[in-house]
Each structure stands twice: as C-alpha cells, then as structure tokens.
C-alpha cells in the first residue's frame, strides 16, 4: 500500500492505495466521485476521462500512484460553483446526451479538445479527436454539434 497526496477538484486529498489501484478506482471508490465512469477494460471508450494537470487522461489507464502530486479535475469539478461550464451547457442545449453514461468523459475530452484548438475547431477535427470516446445512444450527431457550439462560445 502506498499513501498518495493529490489535488482533486481544488481540494487536497490523500489516500492509501494498492499498487494496482487504478486512478479511476481511487476516484470512484475512495473519493466517492462517481461521475467518472468505467465502460470498458481496454482504454477504448473514454467514459473515464478526467483532467490530470490540465490534460485529458483516461483514468482507467493510469495507476493511482502515478497521480501522486497531480492536480486532477473530474466532471464534478468542472463547473464554477453553480455556474455550469460552457461545454456542460452546450451538451444540454444541443441534446448531446441520452443515457448520460458516456457524457462525463465526453465533456472532459471535449473541454480539453477546445482548450487545445480554440474556437476554430471544425467538425472533421471534432470527429477525428472523438475516436477515443464511444457513445452508443446519440449517433454522435448532437455531440459534435455540442462541442462545436461550446468552442464558439468559449472562443
């Protein structure tokens, strides 16, 4: 067991983890932040995407011990208090979600995408960069629309 210290959604947290504990397991099981989901075992679906030191990361692909000293943001920490993040708003306004299970990962991946590309994010880039996030409900149409709208708003 190893003690890790990190910042999650702006708060200092620490915990004792097994060497094999994944970051997503630490977030879900120990911190009880259950907005981050697990949809596959092979780092394909992206339901577990969080931000680690400002970059989108599949939290099922990282050991909790590797996150020691990091600054982690999960879906629960994306909004500014009661004010939703523009990407969260855009997903709602454009019906970019249905069952909601892939949504936290989608929103975290989309936020990172917009941070990197800015307002000029085009549809082709959005679709290409969403390769690592699977949605089974929406057919992606409205997710792409949501991300494009958020990029415009944030730009």
């Amino acid at each position: 067991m190893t003690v890790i210290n990190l910042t999650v959604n702006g708060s200092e947290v620490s915990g004792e983890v097994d060497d094999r504990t994944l970051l997503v397991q630490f977030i879900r099981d120990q911190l009880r932040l259950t907005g981050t989901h697990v949809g596959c075992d092979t780092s394909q679906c992206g339901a577990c995407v969080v931000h680690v030191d400002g970059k989108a990361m599949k939290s099922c692909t990282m050991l909790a011990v590797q996150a020691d000293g990091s600054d982690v943001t999960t879906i629960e920490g994306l909004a500014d208090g009661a004010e939703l993040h523009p990407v969260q708003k855009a997903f709602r306004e454009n019906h970019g979600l249905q069952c909601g299970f892939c949504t936290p990962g989608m929103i975290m991946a989309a936020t990172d995408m917009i941070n990197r590309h800015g307002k000029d994010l085009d549809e082709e880039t959005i679709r290409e960069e969403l390769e690592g996030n699977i949605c089974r409900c929406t057919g992606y149409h409205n997710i792409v629309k949501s991300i494009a709208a958020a990029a415009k708003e944030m730009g």
Partner: protein
Amino acid sequence: MSEGIGARVLRKEDKRFISGKGKYTDDVIEINQAYAAFVRSPHAHAKINGINKQAALDAGAVAVLDGKELTGDGIGNIICGWMIHSKDGSPMNMGAWSALATEYVRYVGDAVAIVIADSQAAARDAAEMVEVDYNVLPAVIKADKALEDGSPQLHPEAKNNLIFDWEIGDAAATDAAFADAAHIVEMDITNNRLSPNPMEPRSAVATYDASEEHYTLYTTSQNPHVARLVLSAFYQVAPEHKLRVIAPDVGGGFGSKIYIYPEEIACLWASMKTNRSVKWTSDRTEAFLTDAHGRDHITNAKMAFDANHKLVGVKVDTIANLGAYMSLFSSATPTYLYATLLSGQYNVPNIHGNVRAVYTNTVPVDAYRGAGRPEATYLLERMMETSARELGVDPIELRRKNFVQEFPHQTPVIMCYDAGNFEAHLDGALEAIDYKGFEARRAESASRGKLRGIGTSCYIEACGIAPSAAVGSLGAGVGLWESGEIRVNPVGTVEILTGSHSHGQGHETTFAQLVSERFGLPTDNVQVIHGDTDKVQFGMGTYGSRSGAVGMSALVKALDKVEDKAKKIAAHLLEASDSDIVIEGGEVKVAGTDKKLGWHEVCLAAYTGHNLPEGMSPGLKEDAFYDPTNFTFPSGTYICEVEVDPETGKTDVLAFVAADDFGTIINPMIVEGQVHGGLAQGIGQALLEEVVYDDDGQLLTASYMDYCMPRADDVPNYQVSHYKTECPGNPLGMKGCGEAGAIGSPPAVINAITNAIGNNNLSMPASPQKVWAAIQASGSKQAAE
C-alpha cells in the same frame, strides 16, 4: 413558451448527467457490502466433474457458491416467457438453464460459481483460484451446422438442437403464386450477429435483510417490475412483497437489459447465504461474453413478381441462432416480431415464412434494438433493390408501384396496418437527398477514381408489443399493457409515476410535457418517478418502442380522471356547471366569464376537503392501466449515399436521409436524437460490427479492440425529417421512434454500396476487405478508372 406536445423542451434529467450526479447501479454502496465475481466456463461445451473451492476460501473469500447449492435451495431455472408451437403443434423444446451451471456448461462465459469477497479485486483473485475440473465436449457454433445429424447436442429436450420449426402464412398459396410468377428473385441473406453494448455494463447490488426476510436489488434493468415478477414467480428468489427492485439511472439498454440474467439471481441468493450486501459489476469482456446478443439469422429468401412488376409473393426460410439457452423473449424475436413484418410497405398477396430456431454453444441471443424487424426489413429491402436491378427498373418506382395505399390494410401475416402514407416520406427523402442530382455526383466521384452509390430502404415496423389479449394468443406469458399514476400535490405540483423505464429516452421530460399540455403548468412543476417497485405499483417497462404509445397513453387516461375531478371541484367552488370549466395556463376558469381559480387553489381544496361536492372523496390522485387496441406501425424511407475507394474497399457514408412517420411527436429534439442513435447502430451493423466465435466457441470479439463499435468519424451528419399520420390505436396518435433508425438503415447502406460497386453479392458487415473482394469480382474497379 409552450412546453406541451410538440415543443423542443430541453431535458430535465440532463442537469444531473452533465454534472456527474447521475446515480447508476455501480454507484450504489451499501453498508456491509461485499463484492461478487463469477467463475466462468473457458469452454464452449463441457461436463463439470468437480469444483475445488479450497484455495479461494483459504485466500479469504467470504463464500464460493455453486449451481448444486443454488438448485438445492430451490432457486428455479431461467425461462423463456413466450411459448412458440412448431408447425406440427408441439410446444417449443426448452432446455434447462440454471443461473449457475450444475452438470454442463454450454458457452464460453457460462457461470459456474459465484465468489464473494471483501473487495472487487479480492473477489476476482479468488475466482481465479477456483479449480473446475471439466470434461471438454465438442461444440457447435453455427446455426445451420447445429441442425445436422451428428452435431454436438446441447440439451436432451431438443433433438438436433431444434427448438422449434414454426411457420406463418399460407405455404400452398405462396407456392402457387411463385409457380405463376413472371420474375423470381432469390437471395441467401445472413443477418450478422451483434452485441448490443450499452455503455454502462450490467451491474447488480443485492441486499438481504434477515429480520424482515426482505430483499432489495439495484439493477441495470429496462423493466424492474418484470424483473421482480420473474425473480419471484419463476425463480422463487423471494415473494413479490418481499422483493424490491430498483433500476436507478441506467446507461442504455437497447434490449440487452430487458432480461433477468443469472448474475442478478445469484447475487440475491448469495446475499441471503452470506448475510452481506453483494455487488457485481460486469467488465466489458464479461459483457461481450454474457449480455444477450442480437440478430444471427441465416435466410433463404424469394420474391416473386408478375409481368407488370407487381409483387405476388414472398417466401422465406430462416434459421435463427438462439445460443445455448432460451433467454426471456428469445422465441418471440425471430417469429412474431420478425415474420409478421414480411409484407413490408407493400401489397403482397401471398407470404410464407418458416423459421427454425436452434441451440448453439454461444451466448443466448434475444431482442436487440429492433428485434426481428431489422431482420425482416433487411431481407425485403435488399430483395426489392436487387429485384429492380435484375428487372432493369428504377428501385424507387418498383417500390412505389407496390406500396400499400389504403388503410387499414390486412397483410397475410397477422398484422393489420392502421395508418400510413408511404409516398409522403418517400418523396420527402428523395428531395432531401437530391435524388435527381445523384448521377452528377456519381460522375464527380468517378472523376476522382471513387465509386459512388445510392441505396434506399422503405421500412415498416410494429411497436408497442400489445394489446395483451393479442400477444397472449400468440404465446406471450405476460400482458403487455402499461400503468401510470398522476399524483397532484396540495400545492398543485404534480408527480407522475410510470411503469415505463427511462434509460436515455428522456421520459422525465416528455412525460412532464403531457402534464404541461393538459394543465398549462411548467414542466419544472412536474416530477417523473420510475424504476422502483416500491414506488410505482406495476409496469411492463421499456422495449419495443412502447413507452410513448403505451406508457404515455396510460398517463393520458389517468390525466383524464384528474382533469375530470378537478373540474368538478372547481365547478362546485365557482358555482358553475362541470362542462363550463376549462383548465389552461395554470388556471381553472368558467368559460365565457371572468370567474376563475388558480390551479393550486383547486388542488388545495381537494386536499383540505372543506368544501367538496357532495359525496366526493378528498385528494387528487388517479391511476390507469392502458392496453392498446393494436400494434402501432411507424414507417419511413431511408436513403444512404456512399463513396467507395476501389483501391482499399473502404466505404465512406457521405449522406444519410431519414424520413419517418412516427405519428404524433411529443418532443422533436428527443425523437431526432432517438433516430440518430438508431442510425449509428444500423450503420454499425452494416459496416463495422460482428460478433465472431471461432469453431471451438471461443469469442474472438470480446473487447473494443476486436468488436468494432461506430466512432464519431465512422458516421455522417444525419438529415432527419417527419411525415405524420396519426395512429388511431391510442389517444395521442403516437407510433414509437426508438428502434426505427436501427431497423431501416442497414439495407440502405448495403444497397448504396452494391449500387456503387455493381455487385449485389455482399454481406454485413461490409468491411473494406469484403467490399474490395466484391469489387474485384464485379470488375467495377476498371469501370471507375
């Protein structure tokens, strides 16, 4: 702004989902919770000689429980709830399915034991330490092979693995029509086996309370009341009043979460055995191994035309692979949900369908989005397109010539189509895709060395899976009505309790829109409650695109009663006649006067009971059970345009037009979303997805590295439009929109590719390799050059 019927109201449920506050089954943690892992068969077919649990128990497992203990405790076998009789009158040959295998395992992943430990990791470690001694037996994977003499036998009840040999329609009349036909088209068509893949893996949290002899089960279910009924009445886990089933937020279902699986049964029982709460959550590989698969039909299909290109007959002979055991609705899917749609949108005077369902050493197969209707649509629409090409006529005109034009229309295969206007959505789709401009676009693609193609599909499907008396006469073990309750609070806010379950469909919004429409209240004043057998009295759940046509109709009936009582109270208070009272905009008025009360004042009066009409009971709460008069029949025209690279065989879907008739639409935004999702699944089936077992029954596509799910860059933007004819069978005129996209799209995609490459011989999924080979076979590569 109106939030009533037809308004694009943003979803109420989204706020929690976009904030990470959804509550799914795996998010539930109970006090004193232990974790389960399953010991699963690594063999497709084997006899269990013995199970050695000692190492697992020595490593600290709380318990290792097997099938003999389970059946010894009186837990019943898993059953199929729809009786099909073979054409000789004999009942289907159903083999036994114990939640944990007792003597034999019959597919890779078949559960042998449940291991309980203090953490998920410990449970998995311990499960690996359980030693099962197997005597490996030969396995059979393909449905046609399973029927052959000498093939491995799965169940003693089913000789040659035949579950039933069923027929529909008039064989002699159909044969006679074929004998006189001017043109006959024949195709061998395979409908590829799929894995539904909701993004949330299945999960269960079971808690036994010994002091109350009461069980609580959180589970990923589309129909928690049916789960409770089956767990209680058939599997003898607990009596219904001692079992609460909660399906909280559920992350997609697509049919795969209708069924009551071995894991829920085993977790409930293990909770009682260990006196611990027991949680199990599937991983993705486990989901591929154990979630019910879909489709997997092998069909020989024939279509006959007279000299004027009018359809005179359709004849199909299908072998349906049901896997190793009969899942809950598995017998209905390839029979009454499939062959009853073999008339399509067409006047077909003679139809005969024969379906043989067989056991194989694969995971059970059951309803997946569309369930039988995609299989019917795929073969009909591929044959219509192929027929047109062979006859040398425009495929659009061949369809138009054979459309049903008058309603009601009785087909030769049970269904009576109640309403539709097939030409309206056909014309709409042709215009949306710019059909006339296609040849110019094809020439432009050719100038770049690419092969462009266009393909059409005109689907009709049947939704609601009701009325109960009708499905009962066809073999259903349950009634398929729906129930709903409207509870008006003393302050005038409203709670809707419904037996329908929402796992992505947006019921919390659309159901609230019904109340908004009726009383002029904002949807924020309405709360929709579902998915808990302790809160909602009963319900049949969500599948078969039934929540609108059946579930919302029950609410309409309950709203009628609420409105009636509220008007009586208001009339009494305002000293007016009941018939003069109107409720609108949150006010209760006497028509033609300025006399009125606030809605909340009437509600409060109902609850104070100080001044009610003589003989009236206090309160304002009504319920209703609703059973429709017919199935509903959504229909539509889908057109797909593709470009194929002849060098690689890679297909790009350039455009996809969906023109649907769903009857009345409550929220167009949500309906369009349902269509988009269905289209992606249909395009996935056509181009990417296939479950593959090797000859020994090992599942080769057991992860997202191997099973190709549609990604954002595999699908286009969709053009979706609506052409309404009202359904006369329910009070709202709704038809259902949940499955259409997945039903109508696969043949449109394949017809487009075969059009592009000039070779009709192509199967799903149309991988680059298959398309490239078909191009080589047809010589169209040279044509493009």
